[in-house]
Structures are given as structure tokens and as C-alpha cells.
């Protein structure tokens, strides 16, 4: 896929589906097979040198030496940094060779430290193409070849930086060869459970069930696409479209969702950062922003209150605009699709206006789905959706587990249902509310928190640290905590839907989790002294995927046992006779 062929948000998938792509020669045809990276890398480096020299050049040209040259240092720094980086990159290019043989992919690089890395082709789990703006302008792609175990650390085993678009996709096509895999009976490729099993070819227990979301309902559609694909497959053999055609596209970028991204405290942080940076930068050119702004209006006439109001409004507008720009650059052209991969299907997201990011998640490792609704934005239905899966870091900055930008709950729920399991749609199921005792427990805790605050405040008043007026705060604190208790209680819910257990809880972020029951590896029943008085018990279902475990809080004692028994079929049976617990 070249830069100009990026899917427009409204592009018809069928149309792109049948566009034949030219066949670039495979790089393997060279006798000993060692290849250089694309020579365009050098041109890009040259361009970077020129660009990084520009600001300093301009500053010199318009001749501001007013600050005794001191103001120029940051610009000179930028120029030196940019030029050095580019030269180093060019040298790296000079000393780098790669080779794709029938068994290995090899890379030699380094000037002072020669590195020779090789990776067996049957160990390759993922081949991802990434492009920063400069790569897209030069029709280059960075190819990251990953082998299983590295995916958790988000580091690739091998990185080819950078290849021409055609070469990159030819190599990716050859390494992953999705057509050959998809043409086989799809069932065995999906039923493989995890990397260890995949390596040994061992079929694991529960594999038939874990294949559930992929095999149920979705397969007919996928098979139909494969069938319609096969007649033209021979003619396409060996060509790299560079873009495995999606089996299904679930969601495409919608500009309207910007609303969900601009209302945030971050707006002010961004404004402060940008403002400070802007003032500093313009200062180096001898423009004093503070002077200009204070000369704009007669601030004394407006008064401090008016000034604050104007500053607030200006900051809000600026922050919202900045966040809107950030949203567009980050999520432009977002596409959530199911594509064929080496072992079954992949869930692929692509996004980004300048830097294109692509993340592929193996669907046979997905154990569930989580919808999470932050409290402050619940009135507008803002939701984040993440997949519950193994091998993806939850804490990485780019959030690989997240499959949609924040948006309306309705769409998130629909898409998550379609992706996970359209037949059972566990996330749309009606949840059983929890007993009133759970509400009582929360109200008690709210009151206890208030009392603790009261005790501390009272003590501080007695010791004259704060004035007695501070006790008024209690009038605010108690209703707030009580309201929080009610909200938290209303968030509680659970259900068993087909092969899934669904549980919902959370005050600050109400999280609805659908988890495959077969993925539960440990069951935990918890009962505090306080819960025992109220006859409550919490159930924890521990799993390898996602956060490692999901709790269902405060069920009646017998319901908890029943839910735990259902949540992991057969797991508790040997112990149930022994007096129940």
C-alpha cells in the first residue's frame, strides 16, 4: 500500500478488494541474496540535514543578534542534532545488508559493533510495516519482523529501516504468505492455543472452545470471502498487494468522534506546554509575546476577574483546538478490520495521519473484551474498548490492546460484539443486579470515609491548625461519598452468557468485562468481616489475559458460589461437597 493509496475513510472495501497490484520482483533473485536497504533513505537523510539547518539559517539571515548571539544556541543545537542524526543514519545505511533466504531472515548492521542477527522463518509471528511522515513522502516503509516472545515487550526481533514500499510488502507477503494459510481448512490454524502449543504442534485442551469467537458465526463470512477470492488467486500468486484484504471491516474513522477527545483536563496542560514553548521560541527571534499581549487591551480596565475569565476562555479554546488537531493526526484513517494471518485471523487496526501505525492482534489469543466508561464523561456515553488478550502490554503508551478511539457507548458495544462473538453478544446482555446488601456496604463505607475525614478535621480544629469553618466541608463530603456509593452500586452487575462470563463494576471507570469461561485459571472467593455480616461474598476470576484477573464484587453468599461454579465449569466440583466451602 503506497502513500497515495491510503484508504479514505469512506472508501468502499469491495472496490479496493479487486484492484490488482503490480508485481514487484522478489529481492531473492540476487545470487547470494544480500541486499541494501532502499537508497532513498540517503535522500531522506539529506533532506533532514537541510531542514534542520533552516531555522538557524533564517535566524541568521534576518540578522537578529540582539541577544549577543545567546538566543541562537537552541537553533544551533537543533541544527547540529538533526544533521548528526541524519549523517549517522546514512552511515548506518552504508553498513547495513539484509537477506531473506528460504529458511532465515538475516540482518548485518553496525559500524563499530557489527551485528549479525538472523531469525528462523518458521519462528516469525508478525511482520509489521510502519511509516513516519518522512517515510511516507519517500514511499518507504520500516519493516518490523517479530518472533512471538518479543511481542509482549513490543520490540521486534529484526527491523529493516527502511525499504521501498514494494520491497517491504513483497517481503512481508513472502514471509507471512497469508493466502496459503487461509486457503487451508481454517479450523486447525485457529485451534492452536498460544505460542508454546503452536511451536510443538500440541493441541491443547479447551482449544475447541477457545476458538469460539473465531469459529462461531464469523467463519461463514470469512469462508465466503475466501471462496470468491480463490478464482483470482492463481493470477495473483507471487504478487504483493502489500495489503492483505480484510475479511471484514468493523469500523472506520469518524470525524464526529472528535467531541470525545477534546473535553479533557489535558486541554489546559497542552495549552500551558504549547504556550511556554511558543513564548520561548519566539523569544529567540526577539519577539516578546508578553509585551504584545499586555499591549493588546487595557487589562487594568478589565480588572483581575475579567482578565482571569478571558485567560480561561482563551486557554479552553486553544486547548480544545490542540486536542482536536492531536485527535485528527493520531486517528485519521482509523480502520478496525479482521485479516488473515499466519495462525488464523488477526484483528488489525491502522491509524495516523502522518505516522501510520498498524497493530495486529491474533484472534485466537483473545479471551474477551472490556468496555470502560469514565465517570466524568458518562453523561455523553464516552467509552474505551480494549481486548482481553495475552501477549499485549496494557501499560504501553500506544495502547495496543485498545481497538477503538474513545467514542459513543452504542457504537463501541456494537463493534465489540461483532468482533468478539456476534452470536452471543455477551456485552449487550442484560446483567443481573447485585443484592441491596451490596448497596448497604457501599453506604457504610461512604459514611466511614466521611467519619474519618471528620475525625481528622476535628483533630486539626482542636489543635488550631485549621479554622472551625473547615467543618462545613463535611456537609459537602458526606453527600458526595453517598452519591458515589449509589453510583458504584448501580454499576454492579454480572451474567453468564454462553461461553462467557460478564461482570461490571467500578465507580471511577465503570468497566464491563466479557471473559471466556475456559480462560479462567483460578477462582477466588473473598469475604471480609464486614461482608460476612451482610452475607456477601466477592468472586475473582483469574486469567492469563488482560489485567490478570477480574472481580465480581458483592454477591449473596449462595449466588457467589453458584456464579463461581458456572464461571469455571467443573473447577469447584471436587470441593463443593465439603460443607460448601
Amino acid at each position, binding site marked *: 500500500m503506497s502513500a497515495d493509496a491510503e484508504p479514505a475513510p469512506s472508501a468502499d472495501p469491495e472496490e479496493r478488494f479487486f484492484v490488482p497490484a503490480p508485481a514487484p520482483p522478489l529481492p531473492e533473485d540476487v545470487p547470494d541474496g544480500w541486499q541494501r536497504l532502499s537508497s532513498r533513505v540517503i535522500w531522506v537523510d539529506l533532506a533532514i540535514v537541510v531542514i534542520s539547518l533552516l531555522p538557524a539559517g533564517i535566524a541568521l539571515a534576518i540578522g537578529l543578534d540582539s541577544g549577543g548571539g545567546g538566543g541562537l544556541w537552541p537553533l544551533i543545537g537543533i541544527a547540529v542534532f538533526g544533521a548528526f542524526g541524519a549523517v549517522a543514519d546514512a552511515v548506518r545505511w552504508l553498513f547495513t545488508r539484509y537477506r531473506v533466504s528460504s529458511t532465515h531472515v538475516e540482518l548485518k548492521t553496525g559500524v563499530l559493533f557489527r551485528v549479525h542477527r538472523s531469525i528462523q522463518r518458521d519462528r516469525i509471528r508478525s511482520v509489521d510495516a510502519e511509516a513516519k511522515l518522512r517515510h511516507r513522502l519517500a514511499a518507504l516503509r520500516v519493516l518490523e519482523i517479530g518472533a512471538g516472545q518479543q511481542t509482549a515487550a513490543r520490540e521486534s526481533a529484526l527491523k529493516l529501516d527502511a525499504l521501498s514500499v514494494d520491497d517491504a510488502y513483497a517481503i512481508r507477503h513472502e514471509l507471512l504468505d497469508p493466502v496459503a494459510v487461509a486457503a487451508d481448512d481454517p479450523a486447525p490454524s485457529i485451534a492452536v*492455543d*498460544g505460542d*508454546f*502449543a503452536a511451536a510443538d504442534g*500440541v493441541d*491443547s*485442551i*479447551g*482449544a475447541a472452545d*477457545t476458538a469460539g469467537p473465531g469459529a462461531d458465526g464469523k467463519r461463514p463470512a470469512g469462508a465466503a470471502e475466501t471462496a470468491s477470492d480463490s478464482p483470482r488467486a492463481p493470477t495473483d500468486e507471487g504478487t504483493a498487494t502489500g495489503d492483505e484484504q480484510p475479511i471484514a471491516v468493523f469500523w472506520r474513522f469518524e470525524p464526529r468522534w472528535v467531541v470525545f477527545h477534546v473535553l479533557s483536563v489535558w486541554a489546559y496542560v497542552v495549552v500551558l506546554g504549547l504556550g511556554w514553548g511558543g513564548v520561548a521560541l519566539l523569544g529567540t527571534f526577539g519577539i516578546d509575546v508578553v509585551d504584545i499581549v499586555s499591549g493588546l487591551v487595557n487589562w487594568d480596565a478589565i480588572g483581575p476577574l475579567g482578565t482571569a475569565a478571558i485567560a480561561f476562555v482563551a486557554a479552553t479554546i486553544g486547548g480544545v483546538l490542540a486536542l482536536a488537531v492531536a485527535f485528527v493526526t493520531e486517528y485519521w484513517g482509523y480502520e478496525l478490520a479482521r485479516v488473515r494471518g499466519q495462525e488464523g485471523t488477526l484483528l488489525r487496526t491502522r491509524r495516523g495521519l502522518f505516522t501510520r501505525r498498524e497493530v495486529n492482534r491474533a484472534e485466537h*489469543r483473545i479471551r474477551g473484551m472490556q468496555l470502560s466508561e469514565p465517570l466524568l464523561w458518562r453523561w455523553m456515553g464516552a467509552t474505551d474498548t480494549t481486548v482481553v488478550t*495475552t501477549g499485549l502490554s496494557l501499560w504501553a503508551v500506544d495502547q495496543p490492546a485498545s481497538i477503538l478511539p474513545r467514542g459513543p457507548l452504542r457504537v463501541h458495544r456494537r463493534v465489540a460484539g461483532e468482533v468478539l462473538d456476534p452470536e452471543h453478544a455477551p456485552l449487550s446482555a442484560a446483567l443481573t443486579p447485585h443484592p441491596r446488601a451490596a448497596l448497604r456496604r457501599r453506604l457504610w463505607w461512604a459514611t466511614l470515609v466521611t467519619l474519618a475525614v471528620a475525625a481528622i478535621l476535628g483533630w486539626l480544629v482542636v*489543635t488550631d491548625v485549621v479554622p472551625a469553618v473547615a467543618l462545613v466541608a463535611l456537609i459537602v463530603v458526606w453527600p458526595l461519598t453517598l452519591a458515589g456509593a449509589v453510583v458504584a452500586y448501580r454499576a454492579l452487575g454480572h451474567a453468564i452468557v454462553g461461553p462467557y462470563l460478564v461482570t461490571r463494576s467500578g465507580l471511577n471507570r465503570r468497566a464491563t468485562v466479557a471473559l471466556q469461561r*475456559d*480462560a*479462567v*485459571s*483460578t*477462582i*477466588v*472467593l*473473598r*469475604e*471480609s*468481616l464486614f461482608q*460476612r455480616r451482610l452475607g456477601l461474598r466477592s468472586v*475473582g476470576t*483469574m*486469567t*492469563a*489475559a488482560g*489485567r*490478570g*484477573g477480574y472481580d465480581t464484587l458483592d454477591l449473596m453468599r449462595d449466588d457467589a458460589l453458584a456464579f463461581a461454579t458456572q464461571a*469455571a465449569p*467443573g*473447577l*469447584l466440583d*471436587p*470441593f463443593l461437597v*465439603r460443607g460448601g*466451602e
Partner: protein
Amino acid sequence: MLQALFFPGPVLIGAIVAYALWDSARPWLIVVLVGAALMVLVAVLVEPFWRYRVHRWETTDEAVYALTGWLVREWRVAPLSRVQTVDGIQGPVEQLLGLSTLRVTTASSRGAIEIGGLDKATADRVAEDLTRIAQITTGDAT
């Protein structure tokens, strides 16, 4: 089969050290001191016996089970088919008393089951049994 846990030991030592350090501090710290002393008393006189009364464990050919806690009770069950490792751990105090802790981990980072205060021979025997059974059953639901 069950042994009391020597959990509060470090807490007690910590409190004594804290007391010595805080002796010269301002008088309102006395509240903290009383609180700490109370907690130490409870930890020494109440918690071990309470825990000893509560704690239970059992293993079968299919699963491991443990009940722990005192104020908050926890039942944990893991099927052996999901068990990844079985470890025997001996802390310094445990070594002194000839005890051992059995830790059974599953693929989940939050799914480990710990059975504390077993005598060493039992812990070793159970660990061996579990390892043998876990090898027979395959798959860990990762």
C-alpha cells in the same frame, strides 16, 4: 498439618525501631504510637491464632485449594490443568522452624495460590505430587 504463620514478627520489630526513632519527636505523635502498639498487640496475640483457625488447604488429582486470611477470608481454587509451576519456598524464619511455603502458580499473574506454614517434608511431598500430576495434564489456557 497446619502451622501458625509467623507473619507479625517483622511488624513488631519495625514498630519498636519506629518507637525508638520517634521518641524525640513532637508529642502529638503519641497517637500514632498508641495506634501502632495496639496493632502490634493484635498482630501478636490475635492474628496468628485466628489465622491458624481459618487456614485450610487441600489437593486432589484435579485441583489445588486453599483458604487463607483472618479479617478477609479467601478461598482459592486452581485446576491442575492450569498449573504452571509448583515452588517450595523457605524464608529465614521458616528455615529456623523447619517450615515451608508451597506456591502454586498458574498462567495468570494474579492466580497464584500460596500455602504457608507446612512442615518441610509435607511441602516437598505435595510439591512432588503436584508436579507429577501437572505434567500429565496439558494446556495452561494462556
